[in-house]
């Protein structure tokens, strides 16, 4: 063999080896780019913004995209009502409002340093990439740090004895990936200051659910992540309770450009999902063929949201949801004169001197309302009226006859919260205690001081008087979809003579309450 031929062979072998290596590497990394190999991420980051600057060296448009979304702005215009909605503007009957409480609330902001109303919303390095893209499960943003994770070991809150460990930012940055049930849930399961508190259909049991809890997210089956339905484009995520699509002329199609909502049942299942096959296991209705039954059930789709039958109860994963929060009961101290906490048999807090009384419940059967997708909120400054009933924090639009509404399952959540009896408005108290102002309710147990501080921060008038008002809030139920065999049976709503007078729909207006047809005896 000549020297030239030998060199050619050598080059050929090297080429083959190189190609093989490339193919193998590509295959091994098919699930995503191996960020650990990037030089810019091989540094000991001292802060979140440092990581973001590194991310932006490649993903140079990402921060700009995020900054256009409600996850960043925490407010958005609802075009159908003209209201600015979102965490930055709304008042609720859980933790009440963000004004003067920023460091606590903004642990759930996709940003760093939102500690007061002067936060710079134009600074790209303040965008937090890791909150959504961490795959290590180690990235946390504790309440009170204004959206920062822990950079150094610290006792927090000071004097509590609780030691927080720093996050290994290098490790987290080198292992970024797709969002997951864990990353989305880090905020969305814990809204209202605790696991499962707010929604009723979102809690940490959905991190690794079984089929019984959610047929789509079943960790051993379909294994949907949140983003399977809540599709994102340019960091804009589909599906929000602030702008819901509850009924359309036709089923929205997954992947359609703007003005579509792929986060809906129909985007996959279509408008007539019940077939003859799906009727096979259902007890026959006299006078109906299987095809006829399928047609009847599909007809329900015109008046009922899919969720109405397919989510028979909320909070089914062993985590209770909050049904009532009575702030007026706060302030009672323990026998030692210090703030106290009482727990129920399962270890859940039911009384807290700082926050008042809670009522929790599991396996809650929803209530049902006509809903056309429009939600109108009682904003800070809107007049409220104290009475026997509960004043609505939000109102769901809808009626049986408008041609746009369907019957939706909802969580009715009740509260007793401070308000201004002179101005007749809701108020935002300063509850977050930064240890210096003394105005926080958690430090002073003085409502007048706390509300004065909160309203001053919000730039809203306050008379100086505080009373309490009963309020209620509606939460649409759309997660925790049960397996089809656990969907509502006909007789959950219809009595044997077909009437709707006694079943789940008995309180829903505009339904024919008399006999519709006869079910099997």
């Amino acid at each position: 063999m000549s020297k030239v031929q030998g060199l050619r062979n050598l080059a050929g072998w090297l080429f083959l080896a190189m190609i093989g290596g490339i193919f193998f590497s590509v295959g091994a990394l098919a699930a995503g780019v191996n960020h650990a190999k990037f030089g810019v991420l091989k540094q000991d980051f001292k802060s979140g913004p440092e990581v973001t600057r590194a991310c932006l060296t490649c993903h140079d448009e990402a921060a700009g995209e995020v900054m256009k979304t409600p996850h960043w702005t925490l407010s958005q215009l609802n075009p159908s009502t003209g209201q600015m909605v979102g965490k930055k503007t709304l008042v609720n009957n859980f933790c009440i409002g963000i004004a003067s409480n920023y460091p606590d609330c903004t642990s759930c902001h996709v940003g760093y340093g939102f500690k007061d109303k002067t936060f710079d919303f134009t600074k790209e390095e303040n965008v937090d990439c890791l909150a959504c893209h961490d795959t290590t499960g180690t990235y946390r943003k504790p309440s009170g740090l204004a959206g920062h994770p822990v950079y150094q070991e610290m006792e927090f809150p000071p004097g509590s004895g609780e030691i927080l460990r720093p996050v290994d930012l290098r490790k987290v940055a080198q292992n970024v990936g797709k969002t997951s049930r864990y990353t989305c849930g880090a905020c969305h399961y814990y809204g209202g200051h605790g696991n499962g508190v707010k929604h009723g259909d979102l809690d940490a049991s959905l991190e690794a659910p079984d089929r019984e809890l959610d047929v789509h997210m079943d960790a051993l089956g379909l294994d949907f992540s949140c983003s399977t339905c809540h599709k994102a484009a340019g960091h804009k995520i589909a599906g929000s309770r602030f702008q819901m699509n509850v009924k359309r002329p036709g089923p929205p199609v997954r992947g359609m450009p703007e003005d579509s909502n792929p986060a809906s049942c129909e985007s996959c299942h279509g408008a007539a999902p019940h077939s003859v096959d799906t009727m096979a296991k259902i007890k026959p209705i006299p006078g109906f063929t299987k095809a006829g039954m399928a047609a009847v059930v599909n007809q329900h789709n015109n008046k009922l949201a899919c969720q109405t039958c397919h989510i028979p109860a909320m909070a089914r994963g062993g985590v209770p949801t909050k049904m009532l929060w009575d702030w007026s009961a706060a302030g009672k101290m323990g026998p030692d004169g210090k703030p106290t906490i009482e727990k129920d048999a399962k270890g859940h807090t039911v009384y807290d001197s700082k926050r008042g009384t809670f009522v929790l419940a599991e396996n809650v059967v929803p209530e049902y309302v006509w809903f056309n997708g429009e939600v109108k909120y009682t904003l800070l400054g809107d007049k409220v009226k104290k009475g026997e009933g509960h004043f609505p924090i939000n109102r769901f639009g809808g009626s049986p006859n408008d041609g746009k509404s369907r019957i939706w399952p909802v969580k009715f959540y009740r509260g007793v919260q401070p308000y201004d009896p002179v101005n007749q408005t809701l108020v935002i108290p300063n509850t977050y205690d930064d240890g210096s102002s003394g105005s926080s309710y958690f430090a002073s147990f003085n409502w007048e001081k706390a509300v004065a501080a909160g309203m001053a921060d919000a730039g809203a008038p306050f008379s100086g008087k505080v009373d309490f008002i009963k309020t209620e809030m509606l939460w649409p139920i759309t997660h925790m979809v049960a397996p089809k065999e656990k969907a509502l049976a006909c007789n959950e709503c219809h009595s044997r003579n077909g009437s709707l007078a006694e079943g789940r729909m008995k309180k829903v207006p505009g339904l024919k309450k008399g006999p519709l047809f006869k079910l099997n005896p």
Partner: protein
Amino acid sequence: MKMQKPLLLALAAITLAAPLAAGAYEGNWKRGDIYYRMVCSDCHKSQPCGPIAPNSRTRAEWMSYLEADKHAKGKEALKPYFGKAFRASIAGKNKAAAKFADVPDAELQADVEALLMRSAKDGDAPTGCR
């Protein structure tokens, strides 16, 4: 060329194996979470919340428990409960055991260990009642 061929084959093998070597198995805490919730917690319950919360122990306590390899108060070894034989024995009634039937024993134990190190009382993401 006779001398070059083994050398080149070795070179190719190294090139192909490099990504594997770089990715030595680290416990998958998410899979560990599923196994912990759906298999371990299926038997191990405690007050008040049902399944034993990972944050009921520190990392050191969990490591000590795993390394001691003792189950049922020392009456038997712990390792078999991560094993294929155990999974096969309960696969008929436990979907997680069935799903992970073929996962190597050591990997599954590493998965649960990774979950416990993450979720322990002094872990990066302490996890209580769920």
